[in-house]
């Protein structure tokens, strides 16, 4: 009781009210900016006629959403996963198998896959979050590779042959659109908006503060009442949930999946990179990073040939090093710097 009286101010000073008001105004502004940007992105596919470029747009939005999901665990909570391809694959396979083999609506499949992925993330987190920093990252790589091998040898899910979606007329019920790319651009954008909103809300909540505290200094975090282990588990489950939704959407987009095409290590990198490139643990980093990285990747891929060559992996590795050396806080920090400088002058 005595301890509390230290904090409870005798009268809330006007400056406190003022600070609270300013903060709320800042939050509202972020929301308006978000609404504006997303509205622009929703209109964008209509402005692009070229099917190839539309495809690039769909992938950019999808990777932005996936990186936004990765960012919840990797960027905010500081647990660097290099195995999110596992959750992507779980979403893709759950949605595909349920639809193709059992006629379950892909919408339901997305949800079930997401819940399955979140559960598996918790099962993996249980032992792995007791490991220190780098060991966690290595464990995620190993587990995702094991998942890939399992899928390749599991006949029930088509083994190495994969799963082919049947040919059906275009429909929002089955998420199948033979030629039209615009629906999937909007589906991917929907997922991006969803993950952005979750990030926006959670970042300013008990969990968000807890995650960032855990990322910066777990020992200090727990001394201040943060449940470190539980924080990591929650971040992992949310992150895996949305990654799996992305996997399911991707499967409905490409209509054919096999283990290599949804679960290879390349994907794990591609989920982490946009956020790292744009700015980890930031609201817009994933989208900025994806908007830079994915078009380059897709366009260079059509020149350099398939994904098997590993050239793209070298490119990603090089890119990460350049970012790490030149601007560890990501591309977004370029703008922050100028704003801080501007404030200084005033």
């Amino acid at each position, binding site marked *: *009781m*005595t*301890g*509390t*009286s*230290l*904090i409870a*101010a005798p009268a*809330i*000073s006007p*400056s*406190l009210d003022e*600070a*609270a008001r300013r*903060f709320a105004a800042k939050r509202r502004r972020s929301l308006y900016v978000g609404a504006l940007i997303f509205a622009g992105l929703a209109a964008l596919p209509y402005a692009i006629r070229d099917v190839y470029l539309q495809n690039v747009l769909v992938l950019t939005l999808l990777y932005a959403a996936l990186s936004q999901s990765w960012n919840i665990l990797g960027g905010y909570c500081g647990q660097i996963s290099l195995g999110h391809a596992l959750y992507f694959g779980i979403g893709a396979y759950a949605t595909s198998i349920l639809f193709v083999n059992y006629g379950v609506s892909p919408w339901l499949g997305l949800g079930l896959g997401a819940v399955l992925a979140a559960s598996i993330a918790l099962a993996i987190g249980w032992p792995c979050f007791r490991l220190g920093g780098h060991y966690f990252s290595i464990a995620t790589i190993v587990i995702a590779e094991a998942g890939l091998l399992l899928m390749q040898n599991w006949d029930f899910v088509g083994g190495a042959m994969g799963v082919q979606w049947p040919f059906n007329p275009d429909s929002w019920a089955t998420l199948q659109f033979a030629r039209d790319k615009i629906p999937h651009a909007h589906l991917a954008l929907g997922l991006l908006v969803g993950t952005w909103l979750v990030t926006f809300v959670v970042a*300013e*909540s*008990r969990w*968000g*503060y*807890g995650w*960032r*505290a855990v*990322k*910066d*200094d777990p*020992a*200090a*975090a*727990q*001394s*201040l*009442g*943060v*449940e*470190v282990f539980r924080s990591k588990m929650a971040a992992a489950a949310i992150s895996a949930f949305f990654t799996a939704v992305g996997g399911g959407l991707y499967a409905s987009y490409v209509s054919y999946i096999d283990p290599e095409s949804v679960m290879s290590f390349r994907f794990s990198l591609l989920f982490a990179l946009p956020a790292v490139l744009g700015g980890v*643990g930031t609201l817009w980093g994933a989208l900025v990073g994806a908007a830079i990285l994915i078009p380059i990747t897709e366009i260079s891929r059509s020149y350099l040939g398939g994904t098997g060559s590993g050239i793209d992996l070298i490119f990603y590795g090089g890119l990460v090093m350049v970012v790490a050396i030149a601007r560890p806080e990501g591309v977004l920090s370029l703008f922050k710097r100028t704003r801080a400088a501007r404030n200084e002058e005033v």
Partner: protein
Amino acid sequence: MSTDPSGPILRVDDVTLAFGGLVANRDVTLDVRRGEILGLIGPNGAGKSTLFNLISGVYRPSKGRILFEGTDITRLPPAERCRRGIARTFQVPRSFDSMNVLENVTVGALARHPNAASARRAALDTLERVELTHRAEAVAGELTPPEKRRLEVARALATGPRLLLLDEVLTGLTPSEAKAGVALIRRVAAMGVTVIMVEHVMEVVMPLVDRAVVLHLGSVLAQGLPAEVVRDDGVITAYLGERHRAA
């Protein structure tokens, strides 16, 4: 609950902790009275920080018990001890360096506030009390060392503790900063928070504390009023040195 309001707020009961062969705390027994400022002193490596780690739950003792407000907390994890009213600072400041000062303190305030909005208000209020408001928007990683210590205290205070463990928060400060720090600790104590503070500079600690406990090689060498402790022969030999005998 069997909380006796007149009993000690903290009881360290025959606690031992060894790191391998090195016994960092040996059979440590001490009571901390409600509302007092207790000085914990002793030479480098005496086991002061280790005792803080035991009280805050970073380590569990290999022997003995720790009771807070009459309840055995020996096995409780650190976060739970914080919620029960024990807060601490770290000898080497551990600020959340990617967050700004206000966000750092908000983490602490969330320990007893239901949501971020009310925690932020409480954090702003705490910042005012420790006179750090002008740095609220500064990134913690860019603070000066004295500011970092102040942030440590603010963050711990924001959790609304009844027992506050301060590990060398006045160390490395200029005389005027140290004076402000002492005033802050007095204010905290005046609000009814019990304080245990580790400090090396005798001229600063002794006038401030109600009682002092001297640790040496992991054991309690002496305890009592500051004036008694500094006259203790064992303490002079082990820690204070001849300079103090003369004084």
